[in-house]
């Protein structure tokens, strides 16, 4: 039996590494994707193009505006003189934000009334708009506090120290500089592992079926179990190797810290790859052509990635969908990847994720193997 499995493995490896193109398929796409993702994927918002319309032109209004000019989050590109200019600039997409201070701004403040700053935001990109609005509010409330203190200081300096005030002492853990590469790079490792293992496994079987060599194999004395092992073990090994490869790119090229233990990550990767082998085999049982396999793989991969919390947090998705994410193996693998890379946590924290992946893996693989055996009849 082992002799036959060995022959089968040798055949698969020859097929995978046969020519330049197939070797490229193994290493080129993952690395290109890793690099593009690493550099392109950022939801940070800096240098938002901004226009300013200061109709008050007082010391106070200039003070407020200068806080925006000084901020790295805003890039004041235009100083306007007429409010009609705002619409045009935003329509053309030259600026995303326009700040408007009407005349009487300083007067209102001095009289102790609420002064108003009008903000017009192009919110067609809701993320940019939301983050920028957050920054605007922070600048504005800083200004309010400073102004209030100064005014209070003028009126009754003795009472000032007694004024109650709560300040937020914020401490971002695991990623002090809020670097988005640190967030995305471990996630990309999960995505790439998913895509590679699923496509390779599904294609390996379907190609034989499409070209007609599957019959040739089935007339040899090979057993079904041996065939299945021969079709999964190579991709298990290749998948594991790829995971290590792209993990190295993450650490060495992007400088993402690796704070946890390699063994924990390896365990997570093994369990995850088992799940993906199950998916790949399953797809191969429902596809007659490679085109079908490719599209089915895509059907699985896209939702699996979107709902894993890869890009946006699961907690902001609709509630029913949040329940569905528990069926997504990538969700758990991302927890493991980010946990090991950034948080440096071990099995004491990650055991539920490991259990979930193990359970999903065994279930998926059993269903697939069962279906696969039937499909060989």
């Amino acid at each position, binding site marked *: 039996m082992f002799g036959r499995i060995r022959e089968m493995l040798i055949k698969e490896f020859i097929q995978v590494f046969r020519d330049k*193109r197939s070797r490229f398929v193994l290493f*080129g*796409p993952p690395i290109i994707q890793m690099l593009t*993702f690493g*550099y*392109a994927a950022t*939801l940070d918002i800096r240098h938002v*193009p901004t226009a300013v319309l200061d109709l008050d032109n007082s010391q106070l209004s200039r003070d407020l505006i200068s806080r925006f000019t000084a901020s790295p989050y805003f890039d004041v590109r235009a100083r306007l003189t007429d409010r009609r200019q705002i619409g045009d600039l935003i*329509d053309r997409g030259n600026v995303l934000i326009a700040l408007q201070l009407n005349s009487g701004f300083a007067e209102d403040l001095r009289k*102790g009334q*609420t002064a*108003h*700053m*009008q903000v*017009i935001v192009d919110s*067609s990109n*809701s*993320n940019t*708009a*939301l*983050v920028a*609005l*957050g920054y*605007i509010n*922070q600048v504005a409330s800083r200004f*309010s*506090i400073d102004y*209030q203190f100064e005014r209070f200081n003028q*009126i*009754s300096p003795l009472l000032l120290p007694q*004024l*109650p*005030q*709560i*300040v*937020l002492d*914020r*401490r*971002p*853990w*695991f*990623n002090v500089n*809020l*670097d988005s590469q640190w*967030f995305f790079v471990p996630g990309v490792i999960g995505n790439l592992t998913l895509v590679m293992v699923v*496509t390779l496994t599904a294609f390996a079987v379907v*190609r034989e079926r499409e070209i007609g060599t599957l019959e040739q194999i089935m007339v040899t004395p090979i057993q079904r179990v041996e065939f299945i092992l021969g079709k999964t073990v190579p991709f298990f090994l290749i998948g594991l190797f790829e995971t290590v490869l792209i993990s190295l790119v993450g650490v060495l090229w992007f400088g993402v810290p690796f704070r946890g233990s390699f063994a924990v990550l390896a365990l997570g990767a093994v369990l995850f790859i088992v799940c993906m082998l199950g998916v790949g085999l399953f797809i191969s049982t429902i596809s007659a052509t490679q085109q079908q396999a*490719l*599209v089915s793989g895509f059907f699985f991969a896209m*939702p699996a990635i*979107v*709902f894993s919390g890869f*890009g*946006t947090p699961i*907690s*902001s998705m*609709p509630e029913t969908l949040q329940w569905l994410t528990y069926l997504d193996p990538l969700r758990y693998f991302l*927890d493991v990847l980010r946990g090991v890379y950034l*948080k440096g946590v071990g099995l004491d*924290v990650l055991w539920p994720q490991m259990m979930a992946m193990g359970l999903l893996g065994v279930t998926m693989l059993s269903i697939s193997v069962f279906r696969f055996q039937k499909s060989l009849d």
Partner: protein
Amino acid sequence: MRWHRLAAIVRKEVIQIRRDARSLLIVVVMPVLLMLAFGYGVSFDIKHIPVCVFDREGSQQSQDFLKHFQASEYFNVVEAVNNFPALIHAIDAGSCRLALVIPHDYSLKLRAGGPVSVQALLDASDNNTANVSISYSEAVVQAYSQQLQLEWLNRQGRFVIQPPLSVDVRTWFNEDLESMANIVPGVVAIVMAVIGSFLTSLTIAREWERGTMEQLISTPVTSLEVMIGKLVPYFLIGMLDTVLCAGMGIWWFQVPFRGEWSVFLISSALFLTVVLSLGYVISVVAKSQLAASQAALITTFLPAFLLSGFIYPIDQMPAVLRLITHLIPARFFMTITRDVFLKGTSIPLLVNDLVALAVFALLLTMLATRAFQKHLS
């Protein structure tokens, strides 16, 4: 070019597509699935951030402070702990993204006046959520702090100060700041990229792999006829899907469509020509379906997803990458669809993008006509 030969090739492709029922299903299901996955799965409007609180004082004042977090729709207090290890575990395990620690002398300090600091520990492994959490928690804390100050001043029998500055926001184009309005028009581009890359990229490679290419070459059909004949059915599928996506965006997701249908359809046709030609070139060059699918993934789908501004804003990318995005046709199409949907932009403002798309379409069709030469190597 002879019409009857062209018609024959088209008929052959249509039969081939129609023969497996699943391909047809894919044509309808894929856009719907992508729409649902991205429309619901990608949400930048971060809400219900899970919060863990450690109230070291447990007084009425400290509880009052926490109530303001609970009342905000942005936060969801999921856990109250009474020691640091439990707090750290909650962050490590990812059960909360933000942990608030109220000092044991909170109310005492508050009565004495001066600043009291409340610690906000953030799980910054997801830097974007951390960033947004900071904005929102600052807003909650400052509003509460201001309220306390006003109350205090009132008790002192002092002047009642209005909050000095109010920020009045007007959001244009996407009034409720919904991610859906931003994402859904972009999905149209993604669907087309998928059709271009995944379906067309395999058409020629499949003929080579199955050996039917020799048969095709032995007929009098010209290479131009082969190209057009192979692409026409996919073009029609692509246009059908475009309309399907747009309809779903408008009726299901209630995204406004403010522009001209003609602009939308023309730009869709141009972009579709680009991706189909590119897929065709790939499939001629790659020869094997696996290699073709991987190449298509990297040259069509990945750029459309990553470098077009679909999710990740282009102006936040490194300068080199920003330059590269000018070579990505999807970038121009993405701008057009969003502007047409949300801004209702008219043609004059979109001329640059339309011309860029047209140039790409022209170049790639020329490349495609040259790529495939009828001979056996």
